[in-house]
């Protein structure tokens, strides 16, 4: 297993639109294991393949307090089940240190493949619904900062660029 490098905003590669996974094979499962290790190490509760510069429709999550409920979603698709929206203070491993309020549908249905390539369906609300929508946005090249004003987003960009320059 290996830790993967997490891309940080405003890295343009985070804007890549991911392609569907065609085959769930051992190489894919190795990537999934590395993504879990990277996510738990960060630590975070969700990680999309886009964030580790793999542009395939794949994400991993674990929203449990103990970090013992890993979930894999391959080629995930969501359908909102209600017009009601909820706001949540979201953060992101690719936008470290910033939290912003984002409004999203409160209840969604998820269709995806698991790590064995088997299809499954799930209804989600609360944190699970927020997290899956946030991660699927990554696969479409979107970030949670896209939901805040441009002024705010530019301030975040400048601060992160400064940190990244100091690190380089």
């Amino acid at each position: 297993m290996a830790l993967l490098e997490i891309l940080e905003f405003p890295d343009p590669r985070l804007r890549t639109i991911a392609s569907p996974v065609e085959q769930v094979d051992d190489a894919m499962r190795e990537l999934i294991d590395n993504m879990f290790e990277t996510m738990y190490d960060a630590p975070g509760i969700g990680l999309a393949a886009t964030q580790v510069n793999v542009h395939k429709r794949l994400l991993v999550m674990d929203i449990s307090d103990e970090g013992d409920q890993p979930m894999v979603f391959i080629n995930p698709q969501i359908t909102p089940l209600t017009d009601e929206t909820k706001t949540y203070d979201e953060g992101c491993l690719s936008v470290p240190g910033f939290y912003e309020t984002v409004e999203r549908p409160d209840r969604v249905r998820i269709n995806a493949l698991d790590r064995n390539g088997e299809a499954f369906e799930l209804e989600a609300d609360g944190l699970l619904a927020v997290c899956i929508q946030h991660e699927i946005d990554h696969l479409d090249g979107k970030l949670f900062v896209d939901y805040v004003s441009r002024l705010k987003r530019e301030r975040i960009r400048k601060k992160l660029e400064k940190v990244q320059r100091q690190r380089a």
Partner: protein
Amino acid sequence: MPDKARLAAIKVLSQVLPADGNGRSLRDVMTQERGKLSPAERGLMMDLGYGVCRHYRLLDTWLASQMNKPLRASARAVHLALLCGLHELWFSRRPAHAVVNTWPDICRALKAPWAAGLVNAVLRKASTLNEMDVRSKMNPAQSWSLPDWLWLRLQQSWPSDAAHIAEHLCDTAPLTVRLQPAHADEVDQSLRDASLTVTRCDFAEYGRRIFPAHNVADLPGFAQGWLSVQDEAAQLPAVLLDVPPQGRVLDACAAPGGKTGQISELFPNADITALDVDGRRLKQVQENCERLGAQVTLLEGDAALPAQWWDEQPFDSVLMDVPCSATGIIRRQPDLKWHRREADIAALCGLQSRMLDAIWPLIKTGGTLVYATCSILPEENAEQVSAFLARQPDAREDTPVSARSVETSVGCQLLPQAGSHDGFYFARLRKR
């Protein structure tokens, strides 16, 4: 035959960067030459032509430091060959020994066999250095290849960001396209099926960047008008137009028509007039609109002189993408750095304010004007708009808060970003 490409690059550069300084536009000369070359040759010619314009001052400063006396003006071709060779050594991946061996032969082909030894010696010396060694001995204007006046203005305008901006102006810009909203998913899919990497733009909803850069006419959906080349920043102002159903819209400086097409996609029921002072370039607008299937009235006329073309019917909304210094798009047109003169800026500012004053009375009460430039100089942008607001009591700034930027208090100033959008400015004004 790479030599054909290198000779073509010298031919292009001798027209774009002649010894007397009065050069033609790189894009125009390239367009004329590219048809004569194979795709591979074309790639090398463009790489050298754009690269030497991009890094001209850096290359030329180092070259001057190596010469006891400058080359004669009549030896311009040799001078340009040296700059091309230096560019290949420091900015391409071609092996140094191949570059050092190639250019003396080019001198012979240029009928300047006397220069072969000189070129060999200079390139051999340069091949022991890299870009960083060379930059470290130069001031910022030399290193980032800007004319002194522009570097000075950048420092005055953006004290804490100037070095950053100068550096990014030396980058190459990504290929960015705008998708037609109705076909966006389909195009996203077919681009990926063509094994291209598609990335979403940061601010423009239907903006996509495509890697590797590609001849756009070959992209799936181009012929049908489903995608158009347009930088992300340039996609933002038209979205701010406020057009009622069947409203009347004027695109006041329309050529080459990228934004005209976008207006028709955003407001399909609007009555759109595309105005441009240059009849020849108005043809480009027409071709663009035909490809997109856009219904637009074309009008030849000067936005600063509406008496010559206006039919007395007021407009609901006007887009004014005015002539400007184009300092925000230097990445895409690096020859601008050597063609633009400092005196042009005041003249352009004068023209911009005359256009604003001339077009404003054509707008209905409650109507909007979106002012836009591809400049990063405040005198053409926020200062221009502030001065207009000060002299037009019935105008107020109306740029949505969500579209504003941190760089300025009036409108939105975008500065060029690595791998992302160009420098650009826009502001929406509303008539009381």
